[in-house]
């Protein structure tokens, strides 16, 4: 099973004017790294899911979707300044964790993804997402088990 995380999918300095532009750039990276096959399909599916509400806690947003444009379940990470807004009520998000899974995805990745969602409720984890200096370091934190952070 391919890991859902990769240093290739971590961008500590994303420049985006709005959520659509952020999602578009993250989708493009997924396709560039051979994890997806259709940028516009991924963007469409993530934005469609966003209509139902994108989870956000403490400035960390998790846009997510199942998409036929995705080949390998993946979590893309982007830190962006000054941040983009998903839902006006939630304020600005400066860290994005975009979770995408293929349409035909089985259950095996969902446990990793649900664990990630749970970990976001841990303030230590949010801090680590914001404060790590390199993609390698962040990758290592993402791969740690829930118990450690």
């Amino acid at each position, binding site marked *: 099973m391919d890991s859902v995380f990769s240093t290739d999918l971590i961008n500590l300095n994303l420049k985006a004017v709005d959520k659509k532009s952020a999602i578009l750039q993250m989708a493009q990276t997924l396709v560039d790294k051979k994890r997806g096959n259709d940028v516009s399909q991924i963007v469409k599916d993530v934005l469609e899911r966003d209509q139902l*509400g994108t989870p956000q806690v403490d400035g960390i947003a*998790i846009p997510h979707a199942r998409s036929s444009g995705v080949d390998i379940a993946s979590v893309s990470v982007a830190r962006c300044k000054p941040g983009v807004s998903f839902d006006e009520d939630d304020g600005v998000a400066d860290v994005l964790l975009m979770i995408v899974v293929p349409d035909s995805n089985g259950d095996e990745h969902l446990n990793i993804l*649900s664990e990630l*969602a749970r970990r976001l*409720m841990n303030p230590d984890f949010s801090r680590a997402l914001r404060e790590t200096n390199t993609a390698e370091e962040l990758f290592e934190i993402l791969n740690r088990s829930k118990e450690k952070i």
Partner: protein
Amino acid sequence: MKIVAVTSCATGIAHTFMAAEALERAGKAAGHEIYVETQGAGGLKPVTADQIASADVVIFANDIGIRDKERFDGKKILQTIPKQAIKDAASLISEAVKLVGK
């Protein structure tokens, strides 16, 4: 106090589990015993009949229908949505506690 909660959301990937974690953390922080059933994508880990029977109050945090809802018939139920649980689980726990007092 004993609390049982059920969380579910549209895709069952994120909100369900964030809401569950938030409720577990807030419940334990307030000194309660809390069991959360996540009705998400992937394996369903149901709360047991005993846990339901001994619960003082039940919290439903769902965007879509609760599966096997009849298990909770007759219980005091606080109805909310996952988003609210994620945003402010501590207040929901206090509301649930108040519901028991009524």
